[in-house]
């Protein structure tokens, strides 16, 4: 599949395969259909934004992509593996990592130790019970480089629980990034951030897009339209459109369903 010229935006994107694909994914909770017949394609190299009003089922969809929930029916393939029934830790090994809408970090560990846990997860050394981890300079060197990359280098010795909200959000994304994924699922990374903090995170994501494909669930429309190559809109569990940001912005259907006020103003 050839990548249209308009798709090459900012990043040096050359891979054009479908990295993640869902086919008619359904998920019900009792009487509520949270995901209805969702067929989504995420291309390698793109930043794909998933937007929709509150309760549209974005987090439920992310949960099924990351392996926290299993779809009732339908199929999910990632990097040509069928991952529909794969547990979350096996998906991470294939290169599918996520961040959480509600910050989920190791609050009593230092920032560096947090990142080191993610680095260590990539190796097969976690059953080592004798060698002191403190002498493990290779692990911490790599972790420190990543800490600097996510903009927390100066805070690497701080206890994660004592970071500001914005810094914790940065670490949240950093943890997912440190697993060196092919596809990064970001569930509202800017949630609760001030404008300056959001700006910093947008800058970080703009940098990491060079190496990793991103599915971005976000309410901050400014960030969405700055970062995304394509935008999908989810309403009531249903995917109503997937297209270029400008097309989505001007779509009457999307305006009606969701953007309404923001676009009108």
């Amino acid at each position, binding site marked *: 599949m050839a990548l249209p010229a308009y798709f090459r935006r900012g990043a040096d994107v050359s891979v054009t395969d479908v990295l993640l694909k869902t086919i008619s994914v359904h998920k019900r909770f009792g009487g509520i259909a949270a995901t209805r017949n969702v067929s989504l394609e995420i291309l390698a190299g793109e930043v794909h934004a998933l937007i929709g009003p509150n309760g549209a089922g974005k987090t439920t969809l992310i949960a099924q992509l*990351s392996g926290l929930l299993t779809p009732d029916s339908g199929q999910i393939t990632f990097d040509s593996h069928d991952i529909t029934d794969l*547990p*979350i*830790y096996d998906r*991470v*090994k294939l290169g599918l*990592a*996520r961040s*959480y809408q509600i910050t*989920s*970090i*190791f*609050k*009593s*560990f230092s920032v560096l*130790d947090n990142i*080191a*846990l*993610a680095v*260590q*997860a*990539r190796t097969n*050394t*976690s*059953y*080592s*019970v*004798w*060698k*002191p*981890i*403190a002498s*493990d300079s290779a692990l*911490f060197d790599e972790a420190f480089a990543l800490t600097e990359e996510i903009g927390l280098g100066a805070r690497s010795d701080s206890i994660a629980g004592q970071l500001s909200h914005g810094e914790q959000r940065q670490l949240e994304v950093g*943890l*997912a990034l440190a*697993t060196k994924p092919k596809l990064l699922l970001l569930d509202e990374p800017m949630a609760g951030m001030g404008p300056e903090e959001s700006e910093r995170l947008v800058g970080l994501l703009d940098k990491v897009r060079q190496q990793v494909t991103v599915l971005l669930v976000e309410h901050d429309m400014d960030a969405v339209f700055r970062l995304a190559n394509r935008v999908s809109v989810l309403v009531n569990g249903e995917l109503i459109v997937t297209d270029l940001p400008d097309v989505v912005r001007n779509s009457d259907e999307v305006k009606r369903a969701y953007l309404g006020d923001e676009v009108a103003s």
Partner: protein
Amino acid sequence: MFNQPGRAICLLVVVALAILFPPLMQWGGNEYFIGIASRMLIYGIAATSLNFILGYGGMVSFGHAAFLGVGAYTAAILVESGWSSALIVWPLAMLLAAAIALLIALVSLRTTGVYFIMITLAFAQMLYYIAVSMNAYGGEEGLNIPRVTIPGLDLESDTQLYYVAFVLVCSVIYLLHRVINSRFGRVLTAISENEARMQALGYKTMHFKLVAFVLAGAVAGIAGALLATQNSFVNPSIMHWTSSGLLLFMVILGGVGNKYGGLIGAIVFLGLEDFAVNIRIDWLADLYPNYSQHSLLLVGLVLLTVVMFAPHGIAGLFSKGGRRVSH
């Protein structure tokens, strides 16, 4: 509270005192206390193993005495059948306790929180009733056994048994120290803090918890075998649920997530118990003549005080912070 060299000196003093303890007691004609001290060290091993999964792995096992019992009964049955060498009996006790721990863990670790507490308790009680029903090995009465032997040592001597227990408890604490500061230990503590996120980083968390649980079971198994040797006797009460409660009690008293917590808790608990039973406090006896029959009342008051005023246990009074490892 202490800096690095201060801590090392402290440790050396404690070790020296522990080594000098038996001759000092013999000199003062108090051999009785050597047996008590051995018991403290052996329970210290068991409590340390519980502290590993509780304090670092976040697994509140209310059935840890099961492994103590499996170790003790394995040792007793082997000795009864004519195997007398500790070098065979103890490793087998450890191995069987580990195997039982694996079976219990495979089921229990599917649950968390209160359910985990209840299911470990239920397994331990099942083993307790199995022991009660083993008529060939004394049933509820239990059985008397000779002490095991180690070439070159005389375990009939309480002093020598004390030193064996001392070496073992030191080894177990050193092992704990190595494990919690290793990659595995880091993963285990992180799982206890945020298991969902560990899975999202790619860790199959169940396996790590399983390994820790089995390791703790094996160590408790050797403590059980030692206890059988020390008492020259074993009966089912060793794995009654109150015995599991006792181990939890020791860990909380000594310091959850502190590598010395289990040993300190065992020493203080058994010390208090012995004190309450054997030492007469006149004013308390005037007040309440039968108090020594209710020695656990005193112990309960102490636990209450520790929980209220020293949330990190007795060991926590001497070190700041909890279990976090540093680098």
